[in-house]
């Protein structure tokens, strides 16, 4: 079993922060806003690891810090403290010590990200094929026909009609835009994929098809994934292990079936009991 990612004590504070920030916030205090200085503790002391081919779920309500954790790892945000190590092709990368160029290389080639909002993951001014080409150009593929072929293959894989690859993403339905986003994220065969609420707001049938696609990709390519969601169904379907977050803290973690059938924390018990 190969470890792909190890995250230790990751924290993110919005605001100046003070000595009481961590002591007076969290699930016991029912808030993530520090009563002393007003800073928001978006995430505190988040630690986990991820193995090759594994899907880890991060579950929690809005504002629990689940997206913050992933955004720090993808360099969309800067963490306040903590460290994260990415293991790739025999190399170790201390993620929060890398310079901007090194970070860009990982984001362009070794990480993939699929956002809830396709506007964040896609460039809406260029065609869907162009979006994939853009990502391929930032990695090593430079030859036009190679790029075209790879884009066609990826869109076929994610079931986007290739006749429409030269159309702008705005012409597509929400589900189709997510498929283009997934194709773009997969363009460089990244070993690590982040999925942030990717099916939230889509029709149920479209959700199911996209989740099935994600599972197939994981099985075919042994991609490691972190899936952020508030949806118990998504967690049940995709994740082998799950972290539950509340007020910026990981309150519980375990095997997904154990979290769902034998939740330990009062909050998780309430969450599971409120499933539809």
């Amino acid at each position: 079993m190969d470890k792909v990612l190890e995250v230790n004590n990751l924290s993110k504070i919005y605001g100046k922060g003070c000595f009481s920030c961590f002591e007076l916030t969290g699930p016991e205090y029912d808030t993530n806003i520090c009563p002393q200085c007003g800073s928001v503790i978006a995430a505190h002391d988040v630690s986990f690891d991820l193995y090759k081919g594994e899907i880890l779920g991060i579950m929690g309500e809005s504002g629990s810090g689940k997206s913050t954790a992933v955004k720090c790892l993808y360099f969309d945000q800067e963490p306040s403290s903590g460290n994260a190590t990415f293991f790739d092709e025999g190399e170790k990368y201390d993620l929060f010590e890398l310079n901007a160029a090194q970070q860009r290389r990982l984001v362009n080639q070794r990480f993939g990200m699929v956002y809830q909002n396709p506007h964040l993951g896609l460039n809406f001014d260029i065609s869907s094929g162009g979006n994939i080409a853009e990502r391929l150009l930032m990695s090593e593929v430079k030859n036009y026909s190679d790029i075209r072929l790879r884009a066609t293959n990826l869109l076929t894989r994610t079931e986007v009609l290739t006749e429409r690859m030269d159309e702008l993403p705005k012409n597509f339905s929400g589900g189709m835009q997510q498929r283009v986003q997934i194709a773009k994220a997969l363009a460089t065969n990244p070993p690590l994929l982040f999925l942030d609420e990717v099916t939230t707001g889509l029709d149920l049938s479209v959700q199911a098809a996209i989740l099935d696609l994600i599972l197939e990709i994981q099985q075919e390519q042994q991609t490691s994934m972190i899936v952020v969601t508030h949806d118990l169904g998504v967690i049940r379907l995709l994740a082998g292990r799950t972290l539950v977050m509340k007020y910026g803290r990981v309150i519980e973690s375990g095997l997904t079936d154990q979290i769902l059938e034998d939740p330990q924390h009062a909050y998780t018990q309430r969450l599971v009991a409120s499933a539809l």
Partner: protein
Amino acid sequence: MNKKPILQVEGYSKYFELHEQDKIIPSSHDVNLEVFPGKLTALIGPTGAGKSTVLKGIYRTYLPSCGQLLFRTKEDIEIDLAQADEHLILELRKNEIGFVTQFLHALPRQSAEAIVAQPLIQRGMDKTQARDLAREMLSAMNLPEALWGISPSTFSGGEKQRVNLARGLVSRPRLLLLDEPTASLDPKTTEKIITLIQELKSDGVAMLAIFHHPELVERMADNVVQLEPPIGIEKTLKEIA
């Protein structure tokens, strides 16, 4: 018996702490048992004695409250399933420990044969080969061929149960946990299943099973473990503290 047990459960208890209701519900209390390769240990006892809770604790769907669940791996390493790392548990589930639950949980868009082939594909078997083995197993279970390609969501209870059993048996785990595997089957199919289980046993598969009928226990079990419902249901968390 000169063979070492594959599973040794010592002092296993499980209680559920329900925070919302401020209650502790005991489910299994001080369970001790052993399971040997090629042998079947039967768990018996009235409803509420915590039989399924023992199986779920071994599979780690439930977090054991106390006790040791010592499992001996293929490499002859002893692991306490109550404490083991989650990644290790996932590996063991994939390669060594199988669980046939009481009810089939499957996606409504998966065909019966895909469900049965799944554990083989997860182990890295080629898809066509896995499908072939799945079909063989479904045929051995007497499931009509017309049903193989469709989702079990419209199946009868007995048909669903056969799909569930086929999935558990097809991957031939070293330890198989069976929760009332023949509860909703007709006598003829039950006989088929018994033959299959006997075959797996003679292949060396160790089993821990809950059976509905005393007669089945009589026929199948090499060891019998009797459980009783734990006393003192429902205490508030405050009383304990």
